[in-house]
């Protein structure tokens, strides 16, 4: 396949996944900020995770719910806003329109047309949850249409690769930011705030029910980390994402991606054969920092091997 086409498929999927993740983060943060309105910390989380705190503060000064919502959802000047992610997903899809199925194209194009309506109408904290739910649904539809209709060839593989690399990156980042935030809390036994923050984190990755099903016990940082890093049966966990990434990389035609494949396998091996006790012994923050670096590097290798070949 043409590198440019592969790049468009990859970025189409990454942008759609990023829009969904941003929506999840925003949803939980807005709810948390209602819980204890005095603190701005929860509002800063989605900005921290998306690496846009500095840009935001420079332009808006105070993180009010309304300002954060607008900035991350609709702001045309924020390259990471949901609006711009969807625009980019649609632009990339337009290039590969003949490669993807018509169902998939109609999903992406329809989403973009509706997104423009949302932007035209604007959002406030009351309409926010309807919008954020809509974003999640559109992302589900996009993945479902792709999974349900696409031929299992490189067109499919590069789109899946984008989805899971973006998801892995997001799970690692969100866990990392929360870990830092929670460790800043007052060290009290049975800190009630901790409970809500971990629960919110779980909700943001659709992991709250999963946690209850698996552990049937109170929420502890160790178990949350285990669920989101090491559990293979948790679809947004790092290990599950890397399982998919490795599967997809192995199926891409040709031998151009050796370096990317090797790196992805190494990360996968580490996730498969680590225990949560090892990770806590090494320090959760350090482990997550190095995983984020690894994901970043893997992204670069994928670019170099497949998407910008000379």
């Amino acid at each position, binding site marked *: *396949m*043409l*590198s*440019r086409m*592969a790049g468009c498929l990859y970025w189409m999927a990454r942008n759609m996944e990023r829009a969904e993740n941003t929506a999840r983060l925003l949803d939980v943060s807005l709810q948390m900020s209602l819980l204890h309105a005095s603190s701005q910390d929860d509002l800063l989380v989605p900005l921290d995770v998306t690496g846009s705190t500095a840009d935001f503060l420079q332009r808006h000064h105070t993180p009010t719910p309304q300002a954060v919502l607008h900035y991350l959802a609709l702001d045309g000047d924020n390259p990471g806003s949901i609006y711009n992610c969807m625009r980019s997903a*649609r632009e990339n899809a*337009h*290039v590969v*329109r*003949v490669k993807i199925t*018509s169902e998939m*194209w109609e999903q992406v*194009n329809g989403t*973009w*047309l509706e997104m*423009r309506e949302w932007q035209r109408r604007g959002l406030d904290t009351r309409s926010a949850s309807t919008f954020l739910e809509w974003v999640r649904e559109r992302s589900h539809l996009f993945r479902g249409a792709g999974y349900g209709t696409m031929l299992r060839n*490189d067109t499919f593989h*590069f789109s899946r690769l984008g989805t899971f690399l973006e998801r892995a990156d997001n799970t690692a980042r969100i866990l990392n930011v929360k870990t830092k935030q929670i460790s800043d809390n007052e060290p009290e036994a049975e800190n009630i705030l901790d409970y809500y923050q971990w629960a919110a984190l779980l909700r943001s990755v659709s992991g709250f029910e999963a946690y209850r099903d698996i552990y049937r016990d109170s929420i502890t940082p160790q178990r949350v980390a285990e669920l989101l890093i090491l559990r293979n049966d948790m679809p947004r966990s790092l290990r599950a994402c890397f399982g998919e990434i490795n599967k997809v990389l192995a199926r*891409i*035609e*040709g*031998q*151009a*991606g050796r370096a990317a494949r090797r790196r992805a396998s190494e990360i996968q091996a580490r996730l498969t054969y680590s225990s949560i006790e090892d990770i806590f012994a090494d320090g959760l923050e350090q482990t997550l920092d190095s995983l984020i670096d690894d994901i970043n590097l893997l992204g670069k290798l994928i670019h170099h091997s*497949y*998407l*910008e*070949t*000379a």
Partner: protein
Amino acid sequence: MHQITPLDHTHYDEMLAAGQEVRPSYQHFASWLNQATPDWLRNKQAEADTLFRRVGITFAVYGDESGAERLIPFDTIPRIISAAEWKTLEAGCIQRVTALNRFLHDIYHEQDILKAGIIPAEQILTNAGYQLAMQGIDLPRQVYAHIAGVDIIRHSDGGFYVLEDNLRTPSGVSYMLENRKMMMRLFPELFASHDITPVEHYPNMLLDTLRSVSPPEVDNPTVVVLTPGQYNSAYFEHAFLASQMGVELVEGQDLFVKNGHVYMRTTSGPQRVDVIYRRLDDAYLDPLAFNAGSMLGVPGLMSVYREGRVSVCNAVGTGVADDKSIYPYVPDMIRFYLGEEPILHNVPTWQLRKAEDLAYVLDHLPELVVKEVHGAGGYGMLVGPAATTEEIAAYRLRILEDPANFIAQPTLSLSTCPTFVEAGIAPRHIDLRPFVLSGKKVQLVAGGLTRVALREGSLVVNSSQGGGTKDTWILKEDITC
């Protein structure tokens, strides 16, 4: 009964002869049409629009980011050509394109036709479409115009005339194919009652043509379609043809030149490219050889091309042969190279660079059609009978500024064909563009693109000017009455 009356008797109507008598080729169709209710037909027309929009057969409109691209109107009433007429058209097109390819080879080599004094040398050698870089280059099978779209009209005398030869990057073939698919879907019963020659094998024929002109030493040539990109108005067609042929649709940035060959960047590394079906003008092909500012082309492509290590279709420099100032000489080319009389007529043409022609045309502007020599797409022309006095006066000034830049032709009465319009079924003017492929041999699928001017009385069929399209049926055998 649908009331279909010819506009007047100065036009040839494809369906109705004088005295409302239905022509033999339309007889089955006319009786089918008689029992179809207007409402049912209207529903079918709406169904076609929905389907076209869903498949995405649209053409991009510049600056529109809503994704709601414009549809080229499709008309459900077919244009039917009898087997005997097609035989003439086919032979005429093959003859014409054969001569044009001979001509192109000649002017880039021995220039016999110039030496023989048939065409003034300065008209070729100073022509903007003439590429010095092509002199002395030997192309596979000596073919230049691999894909030609010959625009043909039928005059009130019932005869066919060639309006122009499109030898650069003729478009519209995707509509020929999609229109047929649509008609078979909407009216399967018509295909059971008519013996219509199929056109669906065109992409296959095109791929064979392209592969047959690859650099000679290549066993299994890799073909690509080169597009200027998704904002080009014909992008749909580029994507469509690439996918129908099963080859990659590339942009300039996907290709690069290394060690004397052209490669495309793929996910499994560089892959050699042997034949480029380009839908990009000469000027944009290679920033090193032509327009240095072009971001659409491939730096170094021309040097590989000149060494014969890649084929470019159509060849570089074909524009000189479909220039309107060269058009008047095509009948002479046919006589010169083939020793035959032209099967298809040219439209009589005044060349305004000639003093006596200029004088005549300036005296008769209200009756004539005047065109720019390098113009295309129906832009920048004057249709005398339809123009206001002011428009004619303004155009006269343009002509006087640079007479050599214009040609003039009599206002042709394009034939009409019944067409579904708001008021019902009414005659509208049409033309025909068959697509001629030249490779191992010169051939065409039996069919073409019929364009229709949807506005009453309008003679401009170009899609950019509000024209629509029709399915074109070539009957396998004529109905004898």
